[in-house]
């Protein structure tokens, strides 16, 4: 009872504080920005750790304005609508989506010489084949994701999860889900082709034939699938509700379920899979480019910050030694056996225009079938 009273008192206190917060409008609070200027960031929920943000603001006097976004397409649309005078300095784009932003002149090349902490990034990510385009670096890698097969360990065995075929087996009919766009790349890989389509850049006919083959496969398997989903939250909910027992997913959402104690496990099946990397990018014509570099250098400073991002998102940190700051369960949900990692390759953007020119209509056709 006394606890309840305490809570109520605290509630009243908070309510009063809220009233005060409501009474001073945002633009007034914004106008009181600190002397160091500001930096404007578009990013996902929890990608900038709150503790880091506070410390950065206190030390540099630069006010950090964060605008939460929920997908890449919206960032692209918003930025495209704002150009040539964007309101943003730093965006969060996945490595294989760079090209689209670069082609539309939305990103500025990253001058890594201005980042003293660039060396803190694991070279697997900072020097990878996808990261250099037109001779420039375009983003600072922060988190790494991959396409995995996630399964309910109470129903599906570890053995079964070693192949993508299980996802299309009659045994789990009506209990599977996947993102079609991503699945198209994986199916091409599974059929022995290059899912990035870089190999077929000079042979559009071959590319079209491969996409057609993958499309026919997914149409044939359509009666078995429960749901074509789009967002990680949907996948998690389907698992929790036991509407599905296995499915393709990104490792981040799956790791979050594992860390919450749900009987889930992930694998990179032997046919292989794709990985991608979230990067912080500087917008072309960024209004506070200098502050943006200060921010990037600060956030790359310590593996502890990388670990904090991993804890919040479930994606794997790109920072060297970040894993030493993780709990055992968190380590488990963000690491894979070496032999499975050997099956992984990164998405590449070079052939994207051709690839998505073929894949997007195929996806529509699968949905319509």
């Amino acid at each position, binding site marked *: 009872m006394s606890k309840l009273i305490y*809570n109520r008192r605290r509630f009243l206190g908070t309510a009063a504080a809220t009233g005060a917060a409501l009474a001073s409008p*945002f*633009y007034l609070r914004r106008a009181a920005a600190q002397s160091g200027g500001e930096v404007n960031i578009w990013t996902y929920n929890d990608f900038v750790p709150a503790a880091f943000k506070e410390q950065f603001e206190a030390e540099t006097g630069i006010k950090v304005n964060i605008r*939460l976004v*929920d*997908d890449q397409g919206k960032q692209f649309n918003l930025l495209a609508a704002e150009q040539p005078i964007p309101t943003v300095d730093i965006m969060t784009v996945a490595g294989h989506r760079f090209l689209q932003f670069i082609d539309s002149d939305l990103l500025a090349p990253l001058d890594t010489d201005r980042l003293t902490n660039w060396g803190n990034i694991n070279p697997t990510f900072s020097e990878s084949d996808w990261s250099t385009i037109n001779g420039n670096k375009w983003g600072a890698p922060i988190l790494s994701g991959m396409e995995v097969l996630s399964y309910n360990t109470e129903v599906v065995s570890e053995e079964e999860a070693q192949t993508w075929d299980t996802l299309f087996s009659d045994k789990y009919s009506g209990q599977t889900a996947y993102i079609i766009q991503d699945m198209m790349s994986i199916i091409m890989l599974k059929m022995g082709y290059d899912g990035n389509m870089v190999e077929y850049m000079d042979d559009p006919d071959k590319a079209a034939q491969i996409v057609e083959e993958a499309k026919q496969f997914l149409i044939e398997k359509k009666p078995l699938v429960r749901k074509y989903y789009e967002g990680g939250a949907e996948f*998690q909910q389907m698992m929790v509700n036991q509407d599905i027992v296995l499915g393709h997913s990104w490792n981040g959402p799956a790791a*979050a*379920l594992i860390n919450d104690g749900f009987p889930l496990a992930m694998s990179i099946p032997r046919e292989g899979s794709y990985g991608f990397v979230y990067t912080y990018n500087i917008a072309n014509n960024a209004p506070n480019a200098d502050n943006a570099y200060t921010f990037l250098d600060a956030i790359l400073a310590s593996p502890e910050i990388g670990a904090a991002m991993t804890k919040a998102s479930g994606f794997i940190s790109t920072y060297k030694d970040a894993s030493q700051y993780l709990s055992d369960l968190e380590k488990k949900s963000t690491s894979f056996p070496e032999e499975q990692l050997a099956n992984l390759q990164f998405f590449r953007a070079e052939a994207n225009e051709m690839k998505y020119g073929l894949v997007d209509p195929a996806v529509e056709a699968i949905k319509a079938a």
Partner: protein
Amino acid sequence: MNDRPELFRGNRIFLSCIYWAFVLYVFVPLILMILMGFKDSKFIGFPIRSWTLDWYKGVFDNTEVLSTFGYSIAIAVLSTLISVIVGTWIAVLLEGRKFLGRSVMFGMTVLPALVPGIISAIAFRIYARYLGIEPGMGAIVWAHAVHNVPFVVLVVMARLSTLPKSQIEAARDLGADPLVSFIRITLPYLVPAILGASIFCLLLSFDDFVRSFFLGGYEPTLPVLIFAKLRSGMSPEINAIATVALILTAAIGIWAERFTRRMNKES
């Protein structure tokens, strides 16, 4: 109100069953939502193994959520005021009048309601830049107001079409000028429709994600915040936020109702 209850008793029982079934239909998901806010896990859903108050506490500890709520309410109220004034005006122009281009005018009036959300958001964003409107609260209010006008027009026109012409004519015969007869006769008759339309507008604005996202600045509205949080999973936190927002809106609604009633009594 019914002098002869025996005549309609059968109907009455049948209909009240339907009513309460409907209440059940709309409230069960709501109750589930409130309940899930107490789940001690990062994901909503059954079974609930242990319970916690932390999610609800977190909402009050986090001033961001509450100020976001205030921001959304302010936007909803301002945009509704504009929509209602403009919408009623257009409805008065359109209803019961024959003029050249009336159907064109009607078509253009309902336009914003017909455009899919994402398209209208981007169209508004581009057009805002063309007009020189900065992204932020003003831009969101503007977009919501424009988008909601058609709903006001439709509702007000429906009510207006049943206004007995004789009343207006009587007022005119007695010498009332058009403005006075509008304010003294038409407007009071329209009050229920205007209230209903206001509820629509408030709801549409309060629940809008896509326009708020594209036209907003760095301060999120409540749906924008929820969408961003949803990306890292549908956690009980979101349910707690939605529940608290619901209780606060209900409180404001009741207060507003009392307030208007008192005002009416005084005048």
